């Protein structure tokens, strides 16, 4: 079977998907299904949960800032840039 690739939900980089690895851990934390590296998972969670209305803006902002402080600023893909700007907009952090 051909290897499956998809675009990282955070930076847009193409990466090899694996839906089988780490099935022993909670599905919520299986980053290989959606992002290119475990670091980008920290950016992904507040972004998607805010977009779905599961997190309020302040909490999402704090979590996103925490990821930025830990792993640095990254170039977000066009798919989430608008959401990231909205989350960070009143805090002038970018």
């Amino acid at each position, binding site marked *: 079977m051909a290897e499956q690739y998809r675009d990282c939900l955070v930076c847009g980089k193409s990466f090899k998907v694996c839906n089988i690895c780490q099935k022993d851990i909670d599905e919520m934390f299986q980053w290989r*299904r959606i992002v290119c590296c475990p670091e980008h998972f920290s950016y992904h969670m507040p972004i998607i949960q805010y977009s779905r209305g599961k997190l309020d803006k302040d909490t999402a902002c704090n979590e996103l800032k925490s990821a930025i402080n830990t792993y640095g600023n990254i170039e977000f893909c*066009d798919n989430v840039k*608008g959401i990231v700007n909205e989350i960070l907009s009143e805090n002038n952090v970018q």
Partner: protein
Amino acid sequence: MKTIAMLEGWTITSVETIENYSREDDTCLSILDEIKNVSLANTEDSADVTGKNGQALFTIKKGKAVTGSGSSGYISGNLMALQTGAEPTEGKIKFRKREIVKFGKDDTSINLSETAVGTEGNEILNLIVTVTDENGDVSTQYEQATAADTSKFAYADNVVTLPTATNGKNGTVEVIYEYEKDGASVGNKSGTYGKTTHTFINCLGTNTCDETYFIQIEVYRCDWNSNFTFELGGDGVEHPFEFKSLVDKCSGEDRFWDFKVYKKSV
């Protein structure tokens, strides 16, 4: 050895239940109450010691063994757990679903019949959109993203927001995802084998005077195995089983089974 009257003159008319208990703490592990048939095969090996002209002088008996088999009229998950050595679980169980949903020119999203579960951003395992245009049917596979755009779809709360490239078109969406329901599950792992239980086969019998007897066959170490075949489809599915009775060393009496009977009062 004297004959015991109660052990004579009756026949078994029905097998009522097969009950399986833990040998350690007597927890009831499984009850089968729709037994279609059950057999208990007792065997032994023997070797003749011969003398002149090949005459048999002695018979050396050895290798007593007891095996059982039968079939339940319905599938029993708890029996499956004994046969496969698995631990049954209950709670939120995942089921996979394939759904095909139509959409029209004015639709920008579709609703799923169940709530997809999984890693956030990957709840939809596979999505293929087939649109009908002047070129006929064109199918395209799309990836899930946080937000829908030209080439990506999004998902939240049972709603799939279609890629904007499909807007203004008619077509169908094939969606593959998993959802959860309160249920139960029993598995078959490669590294586990059938369990050993303390088993009771309860039967009813009758004699020529139409008196009812209760018969209980107690199997002290009933070793279930994974030899069973489900014939799926057709007129109902039986659940076959096989077991071996092992010698009960723990009691010190080295028994395979005891066949017990009493006359039920009218």
